[in-house]
Each structure stands twice: as C-alpha cells, then as structure tokens.
C-alpha cells in the first residue's frame, strides 16, 4: 500500500469505500478498493493481495473486478505473498 483513504461520499456495495494505491512486487500499480479490512487499521506499507469481487450492480447486471485485501496470515508465514 503506497497511500490510502476512506471515502465517505463515494458509492460502494460495502461502504465506506476504503481505497488504496497498491504497488506490485516486480512493478506496476493499481488503485482500487480494499475489502475485508478495518478502515482504521490501514497503513502505508501494508501488504495486500488481489481478490475478484463485485463492484457494482445495475439493472440486475453484476460488474466484477479486482479489489485488494490484507494478505492472510497463512500466506505470509509461507512467504507466498
């Protein structure tokens, strides 16, 4: 996590929107929503992993794309993050 915010105005299926700028190991960056996260606990340097989630639903059509979530403890132990 390079930087982050909690957007209390933006729409989300799981408000409030917790957003982060995520830099990938080996290069690349993506700005997206964080999910399965405590908004108060996010910090620069946190390690997160991508997860395919529902972003929006309109007229019965679901739009799935990537969010990020804190790396699960098991993965960290095994060095798989």
């Amino acid at each position, binding site marked *: 996590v*390079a*930087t*982050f*915010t*909690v*957007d*209390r*105005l*933006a*729409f989300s299926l799981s408000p409030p*929107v917790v*957003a982060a*700028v995520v*830099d*990938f190991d080996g*290069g*690349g*960056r*993506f*700005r*997206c*929503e964080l999910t399965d996260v405590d908004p108060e606990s996010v*910090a*620069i340097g946190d390690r997160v992993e991508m997860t395919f989630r529902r*972003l*929006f639903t309109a007229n019965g059509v679901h*739009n799935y*794309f*990537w969010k990020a979530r804190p790396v699960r403890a098991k993965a960290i132990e095994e060095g798989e993050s």
Partner: protein
Amino acid sequence: MASNGIRDRVAIVGMGCTPFGEHWDKGADHLLVDAANEAIGSAGVKIDDIDAFWLGTMGSGISGLTLSRPLKLDYRPVSRLENMCATGSEAFRNACYAVASGAYDTAMAIGVEKLKDSGFSGLVTARPVDDGTAASLTAPALFSLLSPAYAHKYGVDQAELKDVFTRIAWKNHHNGARNPRAQFRKEVPKEDIACSPIVAGPLGIFDCSGVSDGSAAAVIVRAEDAHRYCDNPLYVKALSFAAGPAAGPIDPGYDYTTFEEVVRSAADAYRQAGITDPRAELAMAEVHDCFTPTELVLMEDLGFAERGSAWKEVLAGTFDLDGELAVNPDGGLKSFGHPIGASGLRMLFECWLQLRGEAPAERRVASLDRGRTLGLTHNLGGSPGECVSFVSVVGSEPSA
C-alpha cells in the same frame, strides 16, 4: 520545457468578478453579463470595443454561443474552452496570446460556472463511457491520498498534519471574511474546523472548497496601448501550462507528495518572468486550494517552502496576510468558492485589486509595503498523479 513567453507584451486594463455563492435567482447568462459589464466598465470601454472573446466553462454551456447570445456579440469570434478546474486560466492564456500575436487589439477572457442547480453537491460532469472497472473515488478522497503519503515521507504525525490542514482552512476563512464577494464570509474557529464531519481520509467538510456559482472576466490589450484605458494596468509577465502524463495511478514512481505538473509550470513561469526566488520576490499568490492538503503541497511545488517544511511554515504563519508571502488573500477556493470556469480569473481579480492598491485595508497583503509588485496565480485541474497545471505571473510595473 520550451517556451518564449510574452513578458510585458499584454496587459489587463479592466476586470470584473461577481460575488461567488448560491445564485438561485440567476443563470449562467446573468452571471456572464454581470462579470462582463463590470470588466468593460472598469476598462472604460463598450462591449463593441472588444474584438474577440475566450469563454471558459466546464459544464455550464457548450460553444461560443454560450457567451455570444447573452452578450449580443453577433458575428464576433468567441471560443469556448475547457481544461478541467484550470478552465478560467486557460481562457485567459489564450486571450493573451491572441492579443500578443497582433491578431486583435482587445480581447476578453471570461469564465463562468453554475454548480448549484444540478441537484447534487460538488462538481457534476458527463464523463465518457468506460468499462466500469475503475474504483470510483470522489475528489476529496483523491486529494486526501496526499495526506498519509506526506506524513509518511516526512515523518509528520497524522494528528499534527491535521492541525496543519486546519490552519490552512482557518487562514483562508479569515481572509474570506474580509471579502464581500466571497461565498463564505465568516471566520471559523480552529476547533470547529478540526471537528467538522469527515468526508474522506482526514478531511472534514471545512477542508473542502466551496461549491458555488459565479463568473469573472478580464479585458486584455497590448501593453503599449494599456495607458489609453487606465492609469495602472496589470502587466502579464508569464503564462505557463503543463499537462502531465496522467500516469500516477499506474506508475509506482509517483509518491503522492507533489504535483510534478506544478513544479514544471512554475519553473517555466519563473523563467519567463525572470524570477529566481519566488518567496522573496512575489507580493502574493493565489493558489488552487481545492482541498487543504493541496495548498500544503503547492507551497513546496511552487518553491515557497523547502521540501518537507511547508507544514511548519503554515503553522508559523508564513502565508498569512501579514506573513512573508500572503497566499490566497481573497479567501481562495476554500472561502471565496469554486465555480470551476471562473476560478482562474477570480485569482487574477485579486491580483488586480491587491497589486494596484485597491484591496480593502483589512485584507491588504503586508508584503506590498516592502515594495513587491508581482502576483502569482496557480490553477490546477485533475487530481494527484493525473492533472494539468497553470501558473501566471502578473505585475503592476513594466520591466525596466
């Protein structure tokens, strides 16, 4: 960045600016007429004396007809421009170039925005259709991304940084309280600012600029003709514009503590104007304080403070009316309000008043008494990592 500049080749000889705020009884047409009439009145000309027009509006109309109809400019050249929140400055820049080129003797730059009638708070824009995969973040959230990044990079405590943001909002409300044209004309105690409802990240509603209606205009002529219109014209020293690569959201090289677009456009403007130490040479600066962290970062990007030190300078009062370099003496976007297309010209309007000694005593910037004659306007469009930046320098004296 290559540019030749048009230092001292054109001058502003008249300006107008409507009060900014909630004009429920006026449309964009009314606001344009009000600003244009004040501008030509102050230049002592009639609308028929203006050869060409540049209108800036983000969403309150399309095409030159938005201006030609209310002002009855039948068959004259009218351009309509848009460059996000720097739209008003873009109208000014192009009008200046038109006069400098010799194509026209007189030009008007005018900006307008009618934001309060949309039924939504904030800026409403029609964006091109995309695939719906982008994270939808509001403007305050995008600018709040600066806060943790700045705190982390320079080792500033988040609570202390919140005090810095509060100090910026407090200062701009203090200045706006001394401005009858401002949207919010009330001083606000720091404790009220600090406790205002949170919008995004550490930003409360008092960290956000005012959503408002308004219009502002300038009459531009060649510098050698300026004294035919007024005794104390404002000379254009520098105009610079930088559109960034807009790669911040995908480029790990961007660290969310600076706007490279501002650094580049400021350096170009200072070179055009012959400025080497802006903090010591400028009398005042009007900068794009859309949200309080923006003003903090701009102090460093514009060269008013060393990297990592602007937060201390803010707390020390460096940028207050009586500080070394007054920033946003008219109240800024924060307190004067931010009708998008009008804001860049509103900034110039404060330079017009201050540098020519017409600003009321209660908000006159102290550095004028130290013989300083130059003012800067800075107008930003977009968000951190994907923005455009405009910087102008104007002055009350022609160069020797």
